[in-house]
């Protein structure tokens, strides 16, 4: 298989829309972190990122720990949102459903890492900068879309078939969350025909600003 296939523009890379007039603070932070990472390189990455990157050396366990970190972030985000997002009605139920799913992902990933003989990463402390329901929804959309791209980026490197199956079954659920959150934001649930894939280092830089 040649890599030419990936050179097809619609499948390559991730769109970070800097032209959008509707940029939330979190997105600015996220873009700022990505830009800083690009300028300063590895020296700019914090201890958390360094630790997670070190994990990447250990194959499937490393990928699972990377996924676990993202699931920790999402689970903590939705847990806090139950009281902080000021949600009611359908959104309140959605937050509960999504939060429960993310907690199940944390549990399954932790258990799997242990059974593979690895050591699950510790849960970081998080800090989510947002105000009110609208701020919550914007950040939720960023997290879910990033989560999808993170799994899609990491999955082709997974060695064990069973781990790939599990990652696939989780990423589909993340995509479903992303679509539902996007509908709450009155945005296209599936904005593109091909979900972009993000490399691990970019995802870690993107989430770093939310690690307290």
């Amino acid at each position: 298989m040649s890599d030419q296939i990936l050179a097809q523009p619609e499948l390559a890379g991730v769109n970070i829309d800097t032209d959008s007039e509707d940029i939330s603070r979190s997105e600015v932070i996220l873009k700022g972190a990505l830009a800083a990472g690009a300028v300063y390189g590895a020296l700019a990455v914090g201890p958390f990122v360094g630790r997670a990157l070190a994990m990447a050396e250990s194959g499937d366990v490393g990928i699972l720990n990377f996924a676990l970190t993202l699931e920790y972030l999402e689970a903590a985000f939705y847990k806090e949102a139950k009281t902080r997002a000021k949600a009611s009605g359908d959104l309140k139920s959605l937050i509960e459903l999504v939060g429960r799913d993310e907690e199940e992902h944390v549990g399954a990933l932790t258990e799997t890492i242990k059974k593979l003989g690895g050591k699950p990463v510790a849960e970081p402390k998080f800090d989510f900068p947002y105000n009110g329901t609208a701020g919550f929804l914007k950040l939720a959309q960023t997290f879910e879309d990033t989560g999808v791209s993170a799994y899609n980026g990491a999955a082709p490197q997974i060695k064990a078939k069973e781990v790939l199956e599990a990652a696939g079954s989780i990423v589909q659920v993340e995509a479903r969350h992303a679509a539902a959150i996007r509908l709450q934001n009155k945005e296209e649930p599936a904005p593109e025909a091909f979900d972009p894939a993000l490399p691990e280092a970019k995802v870690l830089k993107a989430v770093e600003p939310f690690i307290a």
Partner: protein
Amino acid sequence: MAVANKPSALERVTSDPVSRRKLLAVTGGSTALAAFLAACGSDSSSTTTTMGNGGGKTGTEQFGKGDVGILNYALTLEYLETAFYADVVKSGLFKGSDLATIRKFGSEEAEHVTALTGFVKQMGGTPAPKPKTEFPLKSAKSVLELAATVENLGAAAYLGQAPNIKGASVLAAALSIHSVEGRHAAALNTLLGESITPDGAFAKPAGADEVLKSVEPFIVG
């Protein structure tokens, strides 16, 4: 593919959300979580095997060998989805934002058709022919239910094949389509007032045999 003489299970259950969920549960086969945890048993050597079609059947052999067969299987499903949405747009059953959603999803399925056709050709294969299709378009509600069924099944179909794919580039492409099918499914489930994650926190895969059987009644030549 043979013409179905009797109404399929899928046709019968599309108007019944409960049995539809049951169908999806059945076609989903073993849960991914079970596979996930089974992967972590004491026989650690089994978790380091390489991926590929080598061992078992993928159920896509009728479409070609290896990755080409899987891509042609996916192409057939995408042709079906594209034709379905085109028929729905023509039916006049939808207006406004629902129609816009249907158009958008249809155009994304058409992009999948184009990309998959390109992949098959790049790999030296012959793209699967576009099947002739026919869909029951009776009411807006039944059409949305059928759309949700087709999308949930499509997402499960990609999930079922992903571990069989050999080429990393093909896998990356399949995954980038898989999650879009999952997004479509969740959006349609939302329109219907149903759970966005009918399988819970872990989506279930579907094997090619089950998927093909389910779509057979819509293929008329």
